């Protein structure tokens, strides 16, 4: 009886160590954010979310009150030093009214000098929308991401314009532009502040519509092989 108990404990420890070892061989990151997000169809401004990443696979969840939920799964296929290929599945839902899901591919390049960084991404997004009140509809639009910033440890600041962030994926093309500041508290922990505006009606050229905005603060923790 005592031997069996001892063997069980040793097995459990071995499994735990194996798990820790395998986790420490990959890099991973988890985080959360709180803030405000304006949408014309939401009565709430309160937004919140969480994110996690293991190596090149990342997951992001965000919500506005109890009215609007979004989730994104993205894989980054890296080639060489600068090339990234992003494959992203996104879904968005307003309970009781419907939602939409998208699949996108973006080709991207990242450049970094001592304190400056720049990246661009161009691609395509296909969408399907569903609702209890209609059959499905489809869309096909260009997707993009453009970022420029500087980094002076422990602080980094970037400005960006994108359709590829989880909270900014839309049915037709819009222009989301924002600012992100990150402070590294330690090698593993950081806090960030992020804000963006949403410009719609781009096809019109003459009159853009400021259709939304967001401001959030968050925390991230990374581990494994840093």
């Amino acid at each position, binding site marked *: 009886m005592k031997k069996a108990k001892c063997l069980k404990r040793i097995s459990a420890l071995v499994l735990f160590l194996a798990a820790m070892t395998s986790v420490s061989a990959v890099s991973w990151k988890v985080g959360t954010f709180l803030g405000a997000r304006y949408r014309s169809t939401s009565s709430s401004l309160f937004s919140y979310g969480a994110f996690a990443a293991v190596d090149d696979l990342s997951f992001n969840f965000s919500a506005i009150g109890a009215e609007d939920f979004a989730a994104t799964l993205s894989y980054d296929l890296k080639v060489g030093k600068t090339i990234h290929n992003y494959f992203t599945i996104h879904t968005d839902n307003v309970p009781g009214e419907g939602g*939409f899901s998208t699949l996108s591919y973006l080709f991207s390049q990242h450049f970094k000098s001592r304190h400056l960084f720049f990246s661009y991404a161009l691609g395509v997004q296909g969408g399907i929308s569903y609702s209890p*009140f209609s059959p499905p509809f*489809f*869309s*096909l639009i260009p997707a993009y991401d453009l970022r420029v910033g500087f980094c002076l440890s422990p602080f980094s600041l970037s400005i960006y314009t994108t359709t590829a962030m989880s909270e900014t994926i839309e049915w*037709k093309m819009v222009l989301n532009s924002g600012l992100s500041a990150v402070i590294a508290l330690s090698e593993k922990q950081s806090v960030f502040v992020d804000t963006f505006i949403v410009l719609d009606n781009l096809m019109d050229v003459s009159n*853009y519509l400021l259709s939304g905005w967001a401001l959030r603060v968050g925390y991230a923790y990374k581990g494994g092989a840093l």
Partner: protein
Amino acid sequence: MRKHIILIIISIVLSSCSIVPIWNIAKLRENPFESAIDLSREGHIIRQNVKDGALEVENIPISLTPGSLISIPLITDVHVGRSDSGVEELEYEAFLSFLENGDYPFLINLGDLVDQGRFDNSDIIRFYSLVANKVNGNHIYVIGNHELHDESPERFDTLLSAMHPGKETSRMARYTFGPLSIYKLDNSLGAFGKEQLEYLEETLSKDESEYKIFIAHVNVATGRTGDHSFVITGMSDQREVHRIMRLMDEYGVSLLLTGHHHKGNIEYHYTGSAGEFNAASFHRRDTLTDFESKGYFYILEIDTLKNEIRIVQYMSQSAQKTGEVFTFPLS
């Protein structure tokens, strides 16, 4: 260097246009749909004059009795004054004769009557008034994106201000004609906005009209049966689109009429009892691409005996029937 060029290009583009906050779309003191305009009792005589930006209008009482079949002419995207490549000369004499012979109670114009905001083109006032005076002065004019080009939405409000004195805006309104309630909506900036959606739902919840339709400029549902709005045109916020669909289903709105897309002639059947018809442009453009129209207008037949809406298509230049009829249930 490359990133500097990109930032400069973005700055130039952004600085060459105006940015309107969505919460300004329906920044109003009162609900614009609350008090309905009775098209069977209120008529107008429209002069071909504009004074201080407002059409000169004489408001006159009329007395119309809606029958079991309500026939309404429907036009969109006339773009008076458009002259770029391939655009055919605007001809509407046959259309005016058609209206003259038809005894129609009012007409629906889904917007983009002007081109690039050029309200000062006297041909616009001429077209508007000549058409209006064939339909008891009730030329219901939806605001389109071209009405905003280089202008503020207040310019549109001022133009039509004499039609309904005391109304805070001409961009959003509710009209009644017997058992029919028509909601004129403003999505000229590609969205309805929170305030307009809330005003709309508040009024719909109290509207006891037997039949209801929505009219707006920008196409709402997009991407069925291979239509071109799959990629271009249409609203970006799919949540607003679903909100409109829910309102139509919940409050018995049979039909949403839209324009903007030009190619048009697209039927979207949402549920069994609600749908959207995207109309083709009145103006004609000869082009190699398939994004434009040969020029059409329609007669909307609301048949309360057969419980159906038929949208009968005509060529805008000749006023001849094409044989095409689009049918929606009347809920």
